């Protein structure tokens, strides 16, 4: 049964690495935000699988539940912060502002 969890963990990790390429080289700022959101969702599944792999699912599932809510709040917060600045100005999405 462990081999199922190990293979699933590896598949999810490869998917996260692929999406990380989009986060690093995304042409627009929204692409990066989308990639971060996808990686967060994959992290939740990864936490659940690692919990069953380590035979302590309850502990890891609590973390996964909290992480799901925090991931959503982070995405919405960043979007609310940038939305007024984005509105009607597509150039603001692409031009990386010096931070």
């Amino acid at each position, binding site marked *: *049964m462990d081999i*199922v969890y190990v*293979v*699933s963990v590896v*598949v*999810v990790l*490869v*998917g*996260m690495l*692929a*999406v990380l*390429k*989009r986060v690093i080289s995304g*042409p*627009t700022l*929204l*692409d990066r*935000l*989308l*990639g971060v*959101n*996808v990686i967060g*969702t*994959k992290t*939740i*599944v990864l936490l*659940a*699988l690692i919990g*069953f792999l380590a035979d302590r*699912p*309850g502990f890891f*599932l*609590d973390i*996964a*539940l909290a992480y*799901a*809510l925090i*991931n*959503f709040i982070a*995405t*919405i917060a960043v*979007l609310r912060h*940038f*939305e*007024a*600045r*984005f*509105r*009607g*100005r*597509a*150039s*603001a*999405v*692409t031009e990386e502002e010096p931070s």
Partner: protein
Amino acid sequence: MSALEIVGTVFIALGGFVMFMGAVGVVRFPDFYTRLHAAGKGDTLGQALVLLGLIVITGVSNDGLKLVLIAFFIFILNSTSTHALARAAWLAGLKPWTPADSATPQFEGQMSEVDRRDAFMPLLAGEDKAALEASTTGIDVDLDGKVEDDA
């Protein structure tokens, strides 16, 4: 392996496949809206299948209840954040991709240099934006009328 474990394994494998295909779509699709499509649908369905497989293996218990809660929350929250991302992109004026924008000359013969450049720069210049706004006057994109321009 019991029968339930076999069923759960099938669900986990299906979910892993769907999630991986969603990741491939995020990397390879041509513009932001198509990537959003791959990410939103692939990830939501994939995590639901993986967690459903774990639920089948676990059975009725505390952990099963937590898995149900996680799958339920992600179903709502992922859809909401996908909608918010698409709305932000549309309000910013990001132009949706069309086959005419494709940089690969397999749709209608060879592309001109201007088309090729526009395919790699999917954002609107001034006149294109005015044309898009004129063509979408039926849609009220200005939701509250308060446009803050700090330029």
